[in-house]
């Protein structure tokens, strides 16, 4: 009688989420571009820790050039004996592979990533089981993003305490902040956790472009609720942002100046989510499209009195009811935009043209 698969010990896998797709976020790109070996080292550490012998780096298709960089780094690592059989004589085997995504934001969601990596349609899985139990090919899988793996070598070398000491008490270590939008020096900056947001904009990113006033900041990528200017005197860490009902997210800090139309910003974000909704569940699939249509109509002056309330209600109907967090990611910023800038939405109603349209603004 042949052995059934269930009788065998399952292999374990290391998977790297390099499907960096959150608008406003570009840290993983920088890490791979500048030090792909740091990522490989992190993967090897993870592999050694859980006794996995294969690792997959799932890189979004748009990062074509990063795949070449990563492939070259993997080749170099094999050549020097950092990958392959009996690494550096330790008896530990590990193989690393790159895998190209096909351009879906959804595949940044860990279970959809695994589906895609298995060659299937990139839709999320029902959880539990979680990847640590049944991940790639239903085997136990360590799945993290590039930043986490890349941080591992330094933490192993200097110790966890030293890393934690770089941040605040409850939010240790550093974070890569991708500052974009209306600032003089946009870029990716590694800063300690808890760094003040206003200082980040003023001291690190060179202040708001053209000496304009700060209007709003999206603190952690497009899915995070927007902060009004007066909320921005805040330490950038998980707990502080949670207190103001926003999130640190993926570290994508999007700065918007006084000339920015908040309706248009909300619309731009909703366009992204409507385009990226995978179509699996109804509230996300239909909700994002409907919201995109209403926001476009309101922005273009076709809004009716009930529309602002409708936008708010629809987003609330999506929140917490979708299959995966993509629906929440679309709903949360929309709710915040309406709640914090309701008067701006109202100003667009009743045939009024967008008050910001005359000013040359790019969002």
């Amino acid at each position: 009688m042949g052995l059934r698969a269930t009788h065998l010990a399952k292999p374990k896998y290391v998977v790297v989420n390099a499907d960096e797709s959150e608008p406003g976020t570009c840290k993983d790109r920088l890490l791979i571009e500048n030090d792909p070996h740091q990522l490989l080292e992190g993967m090897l550490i993870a592999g050694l820790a859980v006794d996995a012998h294969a690792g997959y780096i799932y890189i979004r298709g748009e990062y074509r050039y990063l795949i070449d960089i990563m492939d070259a780094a993997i080749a170099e690592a094999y050549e020097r004996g950092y990958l392959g059989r009996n690494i550096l004589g330790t008896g530990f085997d590990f193989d690393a592979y790159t895998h190209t995504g096909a351009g879906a934001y959804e595949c940044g969601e860990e279970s959809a990533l695994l589906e895609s990596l298995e060659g299937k349609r990139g839709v999320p899985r029902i959880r539990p089981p979680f990847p640590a139990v049944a991940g790639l090919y239903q085997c136990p899988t360590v799945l993290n993003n590039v930043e986490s793996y890349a941080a591992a070598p330094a933490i192993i070398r200097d110790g966890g305490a030293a890393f934690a000491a770089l941040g605040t008490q409850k939010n240790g270590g550093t974070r890569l902040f991708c500052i974009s939008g209306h600032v003089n020096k946009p870029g990716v900056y590694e800063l300690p956790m808890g760094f003040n947001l206003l200082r980040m904009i003023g001291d690190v990113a060179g202040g708001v472009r053209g000496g304009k006033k700060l209007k709003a900041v999206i603190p952690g990528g497009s899915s995070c609720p927007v902060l009004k200017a007066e909320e921005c005197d805040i330490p950038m860490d998980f707990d502080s942002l949670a207190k103001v009902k926003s999130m640190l997210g993926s570290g994508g800090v999007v700065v918007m100046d006084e000339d920015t139309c908040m309706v248009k910003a909300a619309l731009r974000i909703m366009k992204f989510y409507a385009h990226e909704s995978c179509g699996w569940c109804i509230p996300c699939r239909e909700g994002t499209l409907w919201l995109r249509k209403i926001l476009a109509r309101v922005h273009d002056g076709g809004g009716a009195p009930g529309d602002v309330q409708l936008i708010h209600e629809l987003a609330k109907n999506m929140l917490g009811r979708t299959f995966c967090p993509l629906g929440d990611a679309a709903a949360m910023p929309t709710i915040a935009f309406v709640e914090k800038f309701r008067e701006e939405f109202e100003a667009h109603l009743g045939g009024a043209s967008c008050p910001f349209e005359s000013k040359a603004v790019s969002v």
Partner: protein
Amino acid sequence: MANVKLTIDGKQIESPAGTLVIEAARRSGIEIPGFCYYEGLALQAACRMCLVEVEKAPKLMTACTLPVVEGMIVRTETPQVAQARKGVLEMLLTNHPLDCPVCDKGGECELQDMVFRYGAGESRFVEVKQHADERQWSPVVFYDKPRCILCFRCVRICAEGMGVGALGVVSRGAASEIAPNHEDRLECDECGMCIDICPVGALTSGTYRYQTRPWEMEHAGTVCAHCADGCKTTLGVRNQQIHRANNRDRSGINGEFLCIKGRYAGDFTHHPDRLRSPLVRGAAGFEPVTWAEAIKLIAERFSEIRARGGAFGVIGSNHTTNEENECLQRIARAGLGTESIDHHRTGDLASLIAAGAPQAAIADLYTAKAVLIVGSDLSQQHPLLAFQIRANWRHHQARVFTVRRGPVREDKIAARIVSVEPGGELAGVESLREELAKEPELVILFGDAVKGEAVARLVRFGSSLGVLVKFVCLLDGSNSRGAVERGLLPGPGGLALPGMMTAENLDALWVVGANPLQRYNCTANSAFVVVQELFLTETAQAASVVLPAASAYEKSGTVTSVCGETQRLRQAFEVPGTKPDLEIFRLLVREMRLTLPDAIALPPLAATANPDLIWSAGDTLFTSGTLGRYSEMLNAVHEAPGELYHG
């Protein structure tokens, strides 16, 4: 598994551990709505209609993925839940065309029902709806994208239930749509399972669409007239015509299953070539006569031949009812005094019964721990049995073994595949001995490759394994089993079917619902030939008198499926001019003034076993003997006639 106690809407419920909340609720009479949830198929949690409140859970949970837990408190009718359902339905309707007045599904649409029950009174959606033109994927299947709610039931039933996987999803977000496997058309079983399982009017059927409304039809639950599997099919009839057949209520031995034949091949009943009047051969060919004239003529000739001790041959059918078979053999034996009675034997059930081996019921195929399929292309010839085994494999991880001459669909789920040359089937089975002996129980299905002495050897093999083994002898027709069990087999001194065809001295040949001349030549040219048929088949064309018979859908009675389930046929409508075979027998008996005994001892089955007379007609999913020739749908699909693996 042990039971757990939970509370749903204040009601104390006990459910086996592992049961999903949606099922536990349904079983205790509490409806939790759902589109994507379909019992037996993979879980999706996609439609979000089944969101419920669970105490201590931070947000609403999908009842379709949540197993019951001891002490769980679930609420399904709170304002929050109602609001969530309303929200989902509102979103679903945004791109739905709301063309219920012209939609085939109107009146039996799950979306319609849900919106009536849980939806909002009016729409807040004022944007432009997405539109896409309707597409035809096959003569059977049409897809209307705007109506589709993307519950993926069709994709799952095709891949999981049928093992075909002809449907998939393309594009993303609100542009997502169901797509066929060959660009713009389907290459599949054309079973129509996807259409029946569709909760809305997105998938519609080529035969039913725009024909009628569900409430305008009479619905008759009867048994499929084609293969031996005995699927229950519910006919929708209006104006004496079948408009559709389905089994959406999942009743009967087949649950929701029907193949193309059960669902669409009932259209032979109203084929223009259908015989509607008795015909008598005259100088210038067939002439229509009245029933009274035809019966009188037959009675006179039969009485005359019997009186002078002439030789009768009687050939029965694989499709007539048990009652008709019983009556026919009694008339033949006691009335006409002949033991020359037979039918086309399609499997060696006689040897299996003679060997006294235990037989498997259809339900056993779904529960048995292991199944061995010997010499049959099951998905083609016995689609329900294949469906059951596939479900068993999916739900219970049954171990499936195939011993066959060429690739079959069951290979995909097989633990072991053994390829054999013709005649090597038993050697192939023997090679699995060690593995099969380790299974706790086994069902062995065998086709016409195993007959005669080989059946006895197979049974001995089964009992030598030392585990519980049950058998299924595969047969062809909707009542092949009834033909064997009800005595349509030659008695002592009687001729078998080929013998009757070659007998020089036969005086009368009486053929009921069979077409032996398709295969044999009849040598007794002077014989008086009576044929009861639906169409002018090769045999009917050679008849002296042809009597137009009612089909299985036009009469009542019982038939026995390949696994031995005896089920009732219910008359769904009438075809004017025809009569059920049983009524024809009754008329003849009366006209001939025969008195028949209440019961007749049948010859022992073992005595009738003759492997040379057993062969399956080899019908595929898209052929069905004579009936199949007259089914427009079976002939319209481009997969037809299909082929089996063996030559």
